[in-house]
C-alpha cells in the first residue's frame, strides 16, 4: 500500500517538473523579458546589467532550477501588464474562482447522479426520454452560450438576477466570500449554473451508461434470482458498483471545472483567476500565463492523486493483501 502511494507521488512530482519545464520555457524564451521590462529607450549597458541581475546569462539548467526554486516559494515574477507580483494577483482572485467551482461542482454532482440513476432505472419512461434529449442539448451548448442565454432570460428580460460581478463580498480572514450576502448569493447563481450544466450533463450520461452496463451483469441477475427486493438490487448492488468508476471520473471533472471557469468568468465578468488568465493570453503577459499553468497543473496532479487513492480504497480487488487461492 505504501509502495503504491510513494510511486504515485513520485509520478506526480515528475509531471510537475515537466509542466514546470514548459512554464519555464515560456517564461524565459518567449518574448524578451528585458525588452518588456525596460522599454525601448534603455541603453545597452543598462540592459546588460539587468540581464546579469536577472541571471539570464547563467546556464539554462541553473536558470530552470532557480525558476523552480522560486516557484516553490511562490515567487512567479511580476506581471507585465499589471506590474504586480503574480502570486499576489492569483491569490487575491482565487477565492472567487474556488467558490464558483465548488458550488457548481456540487450542483453538477448531486443533480447528475440523481438524474443518471433515474434515467437508468426508468429507461422507457416519458420523462427519461425528455431528460436525455435535454442532456444532448446540454452537451452541444457551449458554456459561453449557456451563460449568455441565461443572462438574457434572467437578467435582461426577467431582471431577477444580476448579470455580472460578485455582488457584495465579506472578508472572512483572508478569504473574500460572496456567500454571506444576499446580493452575493444572487450573483453566484447564474455563473454556477452555467459552469455546472455541462458537467452535470456529462455526469448524468456517465452514470446512466455505467449503471445500464452494471445492470447487465450476472451478479445482478443472481441477486434477483435470490429474491432480493428491487430496491436492494438497484441501490445496494447496482449503484455501488456504478459509483466506483463514476467517482473517479467525477473527481477528474473537478479539475476541469476550474479550467472551464475561464469561460464563465469572462461571460459574467467574475473576478477570478480564469479572467486573469484570459487577459494574460490576450496581452501576452507571460509570467501570469506561466504561473497559471503551474497552478492548474498542481491542482490536476493533486486531484488525480486523490482520485487514484480513493479508487484503491473503494475497490477491494486492487488490494492484494492476502491471496487465498485454495481449492
Amino acid at each position: 500500500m505504501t509502495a503504491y502511494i510513494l510511486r504515485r507521488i513520485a509520478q506526480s512530482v515528475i509531471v510537475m517538473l515537466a509542466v514546470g519545464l514548459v512554464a519555464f520555457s515560456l517564461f524565459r524564451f518567449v518574448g524578451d523579458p528585458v525588452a518588456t521590462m525596460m522599454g525601448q529607450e534603455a541603453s545597452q549597458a543598462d540592459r546588460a546589467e539587468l540581464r546579469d541581475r536577472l541571471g539570464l546569462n547563467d546556464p539554462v539548467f541553473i536558470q530552470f532550477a532557480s525558476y523552480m526554486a522560486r516557484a516553490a516559494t511562490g515567487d512567479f515574477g511580476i506581471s507585465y501588464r499589471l506590474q504586480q507580483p503574480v502570486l499576489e494577483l492569483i491569490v487575491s482572485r482565487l477565492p472567487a474562482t474556488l467558490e464558483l467551482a465548488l458550488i457548481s461542482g456540487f450542483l453538477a454532482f448531486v443533480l447528475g447522479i440523481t438524474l443518471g440513476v433515474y434515467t437508468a432505472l426508468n429507461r422507457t419512461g416519458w420523462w427519461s426520454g425528455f431528460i436525455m434529449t435535454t442532456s444532448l442539448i446540454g452537451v452541444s451548448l457551449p458554456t459561453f452560450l449557456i451563460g449568455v442565454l441565461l443572462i438574457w432570460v434572467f437578467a435582461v428580460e426577467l431582471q431577477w438576477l444580476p448579470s455580472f460581478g460578485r455582488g457584495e463580498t465579506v472578508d472572512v480572514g483572508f478569504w473574500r466570500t460572496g456567500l454571506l450576502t444576499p446580493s452575493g448569493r444572487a450573483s453566484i447563481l447564474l455563473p454556477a449554473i452555467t459552469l455546472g450544466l455541462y458537467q452535470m450533463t456529462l455526469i448524468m450520461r456517465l452514470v446512466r451508461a455505467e449503471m445500464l452496463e452494471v445492470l447487465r451483469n450476472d451478479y445482478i441477475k443472481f441477486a434477483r434470482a435470490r429474491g432480493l427486493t428491487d430496491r436492494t438490487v438497484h441501490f445496494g448492488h447496482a449503484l455501488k458498483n456504478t459509483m466506483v468508476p463514476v467517482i473517479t471520473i467525477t473527481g477528474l471533472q473537478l479539475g476541469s471545472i476550474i479550467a472551464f471557469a475561464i469561460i464563465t468568468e469572462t461571460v459574467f465578468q467574475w473576478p477570478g483567476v480564469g479572467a486573469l488568465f484570459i487577459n494574460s493570453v490576450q496581452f501576452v503577459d507571460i509570467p501570469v500565463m506561466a504561473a497559471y499553468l503551474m497552478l492548474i497543473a498542481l491542482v490536476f496532479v493533486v486531484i488525480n492523486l486523490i482520485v487514484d487513492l480513493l479508487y484503491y480504497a473503494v475497490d477491494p480487488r486492487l488490494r492484494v493483501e492476502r491471496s487465498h487461492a485454495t481449492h
Partner: protein
Amino acid sequence: MQLIKMRDRMNFFTNAWDSDLVWSFRQAPLVMVAALMTTVIVLAAVLAPLIAPHDPFNPATLNLMDGFTPPMTPNAMSGQVYLLGTDNQGRDILSTILYGARISLFVGFSAVLFAMVLGIFVGLVSAWRGGWIDSTLMRVADIQLSFPSILIALLIFGVARSLIPVAYREQMAIWVLIVAIGLSDWVQFARVVRGAALVEKSKEYVQAAQAIGVRPSRIVLTHILPNVMGPVLVIATIGLALAIIAEATLSFLGVGVPPTQPSLGTLIRIGQGFLFSGEWWIILFPSLTLLALALSVNLLGDWLRDALNPKLK
C-alpha cells in the same frame, strides 16, 4: 450482361437499405432530421458567397444608416428589408451568419482532420513499434488527456501568437487556431487506433505478411488501417462537434479568429454587447445556428456510436 450488372447494383442498394446500419438510421427520425440539418448548414456555408443576399465584409456596400434594423421590418431610412435584421454596422445578419458558419465549419473540419491524421499516425506508430516509443507516447497522451482540451488549445494559441511577429498574427490566426484545437484533440484518435492496431497486429495474417517480407508500412496501411476506421469515424464526428464548440468558445473569448473574419463565436460576442439595449436579433440568430450545428453533429455522432457498437445489438 448489362442487365445483370444493373441488377447487381440494385441488389447492392437494396441490401444496403436493409442493412443494420441504415435500418437503425431509418428508425430514428430524429437522427434523420439531424443529418438533414447538418447537410443544409454545411451546404449553405459552402455556398455562402453565392447565396448570401449581401456581402457583409465589403465596406463599400455597408450603410451605417441601415444599422440596428430589426428582422423583417423595413428600415426607417432606406426601406430595405433584412430577413434577420442588421447589426450595429449595418451588416445583414443572415449574410454574416452564412459567412460565419463557413469559418466555423472550416476551422472545425480542418482541426478534426488534423487531429485525426496526427492521432492515427501516432497510434499506428505506437502500436507497431511498441517498446519505449509506445510507453512514452502513451504517457504523454495520458497526461494530456487529464487536462481539459480548452486549456491546452488556449495555451498553444497563446504561445504561438507570442512567437509570431505582430505583422503576421492576423493572417496566421486561423491556422494557429486549427493547429491549437487539433493538437488538443488527437489523443482519443491515437488511443483507439493503437488499441485496434494492437489487436490486428497479433493476428496471424499480419505475422504471415511479415514473414513473407511485406514492408511494414504496407501491412499497416492495407490491413490494419481499414479495420480501425469504424471507431475513428465515431470519434471524428463527435470530435467535429467539439472542435466547432472549441472554436466558437475561443473566438467568443477574443482569442480565436481575427475580427476581420468573424465566425459564429465572434458574432455572439458582438451580440452580447447589445443584449441590454434590446437588439436581441444580433445575438439570437448566430446562437441558434451554432446550437443547431453542434446539436445535429452530436446527434449523428451518438447515433453512429450506438449503431456501430456490436454489444448493443
